């Protein structure tokens, strides 16, 4: 077997991982933009998708002839499509079949049958044991017949025009009492809209949950289900959190879901891993659920099932593709399910929740995944013992990611960065673990939804379990608010001393950054394994003692006092309103006395920075003036945990320097981590355990440059919250694209001289598979349209300019 993985990102790595454990050689394919992507290195071989004009998906991962070329060049015998791209393409599977290559997935017939919603419904009607939405599609349109049918299926009932579509003329009847009245209205609207007053009835599910069942079938007629996943936490139909088992279902109910899914899979002669989706009534999810559709591929959220049951689905996909008999029966799955773990997955996206969830693109300077368990799937040890089911019994976090520091998120592909899957014996533990794992996740360079997910994970509704699919839509603002209610803000508000202490630590590590850089310059030696400063000892009998680090910033300093001046200020994240934050915008002067006992006595004084006074409306110390800041003296000890410089694989040739320390400020422990990219971008995270504060540390020049900008903005009265804000320009007379993309459409009213209202959409830009609306930011007259449909636009590029409205009104 030689397996070509026709995908990219985390799923390609995921597939390669299992193949590696099974000793199967793998071939990665890649577009030009992905030449250095982690998935390419995860495979044993790689083939470029030759001849592509660009890295766009249509030219690369969606291009069947180019993939066939790569398959031929690599002598691949099997192709794993991953998810997305061509994973459910019947024509791809057919093309593979013709060239004698095995598609790791279902037969073409099943792909075709399930690819079309209405054909799949027809097949399921014929099948036994697949619950479909109860309905009446009969010819008899008599009022009594319809009422009887409605009563039988149970209210509420949806009355739909038989010829209709797009929701037109649909009426919902809540009970017997209003049925006839709604029917009359529906008929009237149907007659006028479609010239046909026939209707059909369907049971209406007002609040639903998304519950899906993993199935696995072999080529020998065996089919089992691996229980369900609840994917109800969605934002605009995009799944965000998925879990298994589904909250609130009994074992018998879970089995019924599974049996229904197996019946559905058997009805289409399914082979391999697939997912049968059901719509469940949120008020009665155990008993009222209906077939929705079947996904004929491995899904994004498949690790949830893997972690819950301790099974490797990719392993079995490959075994089934090799013609092996399924190594386990339903009884074994049931047995594993009885002591399964609870697993929850969170999907991390490169997007900005505080800016309308717009995708964010660009380089990733730094990334830290929780507990350094990146790429841990299941080891051979775990998967290949006597039973295929072997859940890791202790709580752990699995990290499936497709990006690494130095990588770049491009507008070409899906902005999903990766997934964290927390599993634990109970749901409560899993929720907590997920939250902590999210809190440990750190990105630098891009906006992500990590904080947003973290806020979701501690929302009381989610913690309770069993939310419905519409849950998030109504609560976006509330969740956003709690996501921004950051630990450090609370600290700063309740305890200014504490904030100063944190700032002092930040200043110290900022100062150490320069020490280390200087030392780097002095020494070129490299000692590989010795660089992981983890205090390794051969035996736990001789642990590394807690060490004291002396902070000295210059030669010959022995009994004197060294001063470190550092400015610590928190830069507002893009999109945040200007009134907030600023509490930690401080200038810290740290005086270091090289104590003879090895401890550093440090006195730190914190004063608000120049900008701090100007803006800190929320700052509890705003307006206090410097004099009210007494010099605080305390001891600071920094224990270095790790300290290394790495060259990251970036087209920009960045060097990242990373330091983590444990600091004791007046005896109170704080974790501190500092990351510096060589372009002067520095981030520090300081905090307690999982609650941390992000800091940006600026050099003197950067700080003064920023002050100049802020002054300019303040004096001209313009909004400072421009960066990343919709329009991406401080000037409201210019409409700019907030992100890299392609102009999809231009509004009919967007022509020169046309008057437009504030908020009126003018141009639509496609990026990351989504369309983004660019609207006028004030009333005005279109002065110039600077782009055409199909044109590529850069982030911040002005697409339309407006003249002042007054001109027109004056002349009117």
């Amino acid at each position: 077997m030689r397996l070509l993985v026709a995908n990219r990102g985390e799923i390609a790595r995921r597939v390669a991982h299992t193949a590696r454990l099974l000793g199967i050689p793998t071939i990665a394919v890649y577009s030009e933009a992905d030449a250095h992507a982690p998935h390419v290195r995860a495979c044993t071989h790689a083939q470029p998708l030759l001849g592509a004009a660009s890295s766009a998906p249509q030219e690369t991962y969606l291009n069947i002839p180019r993939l066939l070329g790569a398959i031929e060049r690599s002598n691949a015998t099997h192709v794993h499509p991953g998810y997305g791209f061509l994973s459910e393409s019947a024509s791809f599977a057919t093309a593979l079949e013709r060239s004698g290559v095995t598609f790791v997935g279902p037969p073409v017939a099943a792909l075709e049958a399930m690819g079309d919603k209405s054909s799949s419904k027809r097949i399921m009607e014929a099948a036994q044991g697949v619950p479909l939405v109860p309905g009446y599609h009969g010819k008899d349109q008599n009022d009594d017949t319809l009422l009887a049918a409605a009563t039988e299926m149970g209210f509420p009932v949806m009355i739909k025009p038989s010829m209709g579509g797009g929701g037109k003329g649909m009426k919902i009847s809540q009970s017997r009492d209003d049925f006839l009245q709604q029917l009359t209205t529906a008929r009237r609207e149907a007659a006028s809209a479609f010239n046909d007053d026939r209707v059909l009835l369907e049971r209406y599910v007002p609040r639903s949950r998304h519950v899906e069942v993993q199935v696995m079938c072999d080529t020998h007629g065996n089919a089992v289900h691996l229980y369900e996943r609840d994917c109800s936490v969605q934002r605009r139909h995009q799944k965000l959190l998925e879990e298994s088992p589904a909250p609130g279902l009994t074992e018998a109910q879970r089995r019924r879901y599974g049996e229904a899914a197996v019946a559905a899979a058997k009805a289409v002669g399914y082979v391999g891993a697939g997912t049968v989706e059901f719509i469940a009534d949120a008020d009665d999810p155990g008993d009222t659920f209906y077939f929705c559709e079947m996904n004929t591929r491995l899904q994004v959220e498949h690790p949830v099932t893997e972690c819950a049951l301790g099974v490797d689905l990719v392993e079995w996909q490959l075994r089934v593709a090799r013609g092996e008999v399924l190594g386990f029966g339903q009884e074994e799955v049931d047995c594993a399910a009885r002591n399964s773990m609870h697993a929850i997955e969170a999907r991390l996206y490169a997007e900005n929740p505080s800016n309308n969830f717009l995708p964010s693109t660009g380089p990733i300077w730094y990334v830290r995944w929780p507990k350094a368990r990146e790429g841990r799937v299941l080891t051979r040890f775990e998967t290949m013992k006597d039973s295929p089911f072997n859940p890791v019994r202790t709580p752990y976090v699995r990290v499936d990611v497709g990006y690494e520091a130095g990588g770049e998120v491009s507008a070409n592909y899906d902005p999903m960065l990766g997934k964290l899957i927390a599993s634990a014996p109970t749901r409560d533990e899993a929720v907590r673990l997920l939250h902590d794992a999210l809190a440990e996740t750190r990105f630098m360079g891009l906006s992500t939804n990590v904080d947003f997910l973290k806020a979701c994970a501690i929302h009381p509704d989610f913690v309770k379990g069993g939310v419905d699919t519409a849950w998030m839509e109504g609560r976006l603002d509330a969740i956003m608010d709690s996501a921004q209610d950051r630990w450090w803000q609370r600290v700063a508000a309740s305890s200014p001393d504490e904030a100063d202490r944190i700032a002092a630590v930040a200043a110290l590590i900022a100062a150490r950054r320069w020490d280390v850089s200087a030392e780097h310059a002095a020494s070129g030696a490299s000692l590989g394994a010795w660089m992981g400063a983890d205090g390794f000892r051969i035996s736990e009998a001789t642990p590394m003692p807690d060490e004291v680090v002396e902070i000295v910033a210059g030669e010959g300093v022995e009994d004197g006092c060294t001063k470190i001046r550092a400015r610590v200020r928190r830069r507002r994240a893009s999109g945040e309103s200007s009134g907030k934050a600023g509490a930690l915008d401080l200038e810290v002067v740290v005086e270091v006395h090289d104590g003879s006992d090895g401890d550093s006595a440090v006195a730190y004084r914190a004063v608000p920075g120049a900008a701090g006074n100007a803006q800190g409306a929320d700052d509890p110390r705003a307006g206090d003036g410097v004099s009210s800041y007494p010099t605080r003296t305390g001891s600071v000890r920094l224990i270095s945990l790790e300290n290394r410089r790495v060259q990251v694989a970036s087209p920009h040739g960045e060097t990242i320097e990373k330091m983590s320390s444990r600091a004791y400020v007046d005896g109170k422990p704080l974790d501190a981590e500092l990351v510096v990219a060589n372009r002067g971008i520095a981030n520090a995270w300081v905090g307690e355990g999982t609650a941390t504060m992000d800091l940006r540390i600026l050099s003197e020049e950067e700080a003064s440059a920023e002050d100049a900008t802020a002054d300019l903005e303040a004096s001209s009265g313009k909004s400072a919250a421009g960066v990343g804000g919709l329009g991406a320009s401080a000037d409201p007379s210019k409409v700019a694209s907030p992100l890299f993309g392609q102009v999809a459409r231009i509004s009919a009213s967007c022509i020169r001289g046309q008057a437009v209202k504030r908020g009126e959409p003018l141009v639509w830009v496609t990026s990351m598979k989504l369309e983004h609306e660019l609207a006028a930011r004030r009333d005005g007259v279109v002065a110039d349209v600077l782009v055409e449909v199909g044109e590529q636009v850069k982030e911040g590029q002005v697409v339309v300019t407006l003249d002042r409205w007054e001109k027109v009104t004056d002349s009117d």
Partner: protein
Amino acid sequence: LWFPCAALSSSSSSSSSSPHFALLPSAPLPSRDALKANGEHMQTCMQDFLQAANFAAKGGTGKYYDKHIARAKLTARDRVARLLDPGSPFLEIGMLAGHHEGIPSAALVTGLGLVHGRLTAVVANDATVKGGTYHPITCKKQVRMQTIAEKCRLPCVYIVDSGGANLPKQHEVFPDREHFGRIFYNMARMSALGLPQIALVVGSCTAGGAYVPAMADEACIVKGNGAIYLAGPPLVKAATGEEVTSEQLGGADVHCASSGLTDGYARDELAALRFGRRALAASHGTSHEMTAQTSSPKPHSTPSSTQLDGGESAYDLFDVDAEDVTPHHNLNSDVEPPLGSPDELLECIPAPGSTAQLDMRFIASRIFDGGRMHEYKPRYGTSMLCGYAHLNGDLVGVVGNASPVLFEASAKKGASFIQLCDQRGIPLIFLQDVTGFMVGSKHEANGLAKDGACMVRAVSCATVPKLTLFVNRSYGAGNYGMCGRAYEPHFAFSWPNSRIAVMGGEQAKSVLEQLGGSNAERLVDEFDAHSTALFASSNLWDDGVIDPRDTRRVLSLALQAALNGTRVSAAHTSGVTRSKFGPFRL
């Protein structure tokens, strides 16, 4: 500059992206019961190891310890930790030395760590154990540490707190080639090689001990506790009648102001340790090791070809298009981790009584990058596993026992692989599970002794860094061919379950029973007790027992130390010059 942080540069030249060597295949896993039994056996050995380590770590206890602390002295291990960079690993050498004689750590803590980011050898006397005096094993340990330092070209720091030679044992400590005198001989020679020798006198340095600061390049003494003299106050009084205090005779004021024996005057121990750090920082200069560091072996690159081979096996030559994939950046953090989990190494040694063989490829797949290896002659001399692999980014040649008996072909394979690696400057790692060479008339007639000698000769003369790991058994001439202690591996470590002896216990039993008569049982027990890893380590037949889970980490640390030596000294000092012939195909 004196900076608190280690200079932890990781220049991109050190690490290398591994070419995509094939994955190491491994035999099917043993049954669950067998794994459990293996794990339990290892647990027992680990318990013994931990107990011994605890004994060694504690040092002197009771009144010796109390007296030490009452004099405001730090323990030896604390001193070492405070000398090293924060967070620096400390690769302790010979921790269990002296264990079976009941001398914790042989009254001496030795090992390698970073000082200002520079790898340094540290020797610290433990005055809580027999006053820090030198027993035979103490001498042996210090000489061993110095040997490592010289081979790896490392500066040395001696933290001195010792009463000199142990008088009752003087005949075993004083006169011979490897005895006390050797320490000063080594100091002089290393100093001549440009390796800084720094002494920090934090306690007494009496008689012979006085020569440590005297022979050092730079020395520092602590006011009060530090004292250096050839004869202490009691001896002076006995010899001349002069009554003098220790401080007056050889204290800090005498030696810093008057004799000039010491350079630094420290008010307390921490100040002395700071002196040590600063002295090393000031010794960087243009010394040899800073200028010559470009000759570290580079991984060989695989030839590029556009055609893939269509083989089905995962471990045939498979890496033809690897270069297409090789990213342009080389990251340490990017090194592929080994397969699986290191915990699995605790269950991979067949429990005693089991007839199963251990799977050396499985062990290697848990140690080397990506579990990958480019095997040498996989179908020839199959009891020997030879191949190229990467250890934390560095290319190494692995010589392991795929099965424990050496045959003619396996010896020839090993010999030529060692020659190849030596010629190419690739460090060698020996993974020993060997019960010896095959016996019998057929094999004698085939020239087994001659082929075995080839391997022993190759091992003896190879000048690349050699690391030996005693994984399980090391018996007879197998120990020699696989680079046992006599073949001067740069470092040798043992797993707690391993055994070293002239032959296996079963064979020994039958021989001893024939010879021993009524003493047979005692002899067998003794033989057994003398072949354990703890016994080996307490006699310094290795450099330490390690937790199998730490194998990769320990070997990586040791390899970097060894490579430092080859980087610094282009010309080898062992007297063996590189042959003018290429490796013979044996």
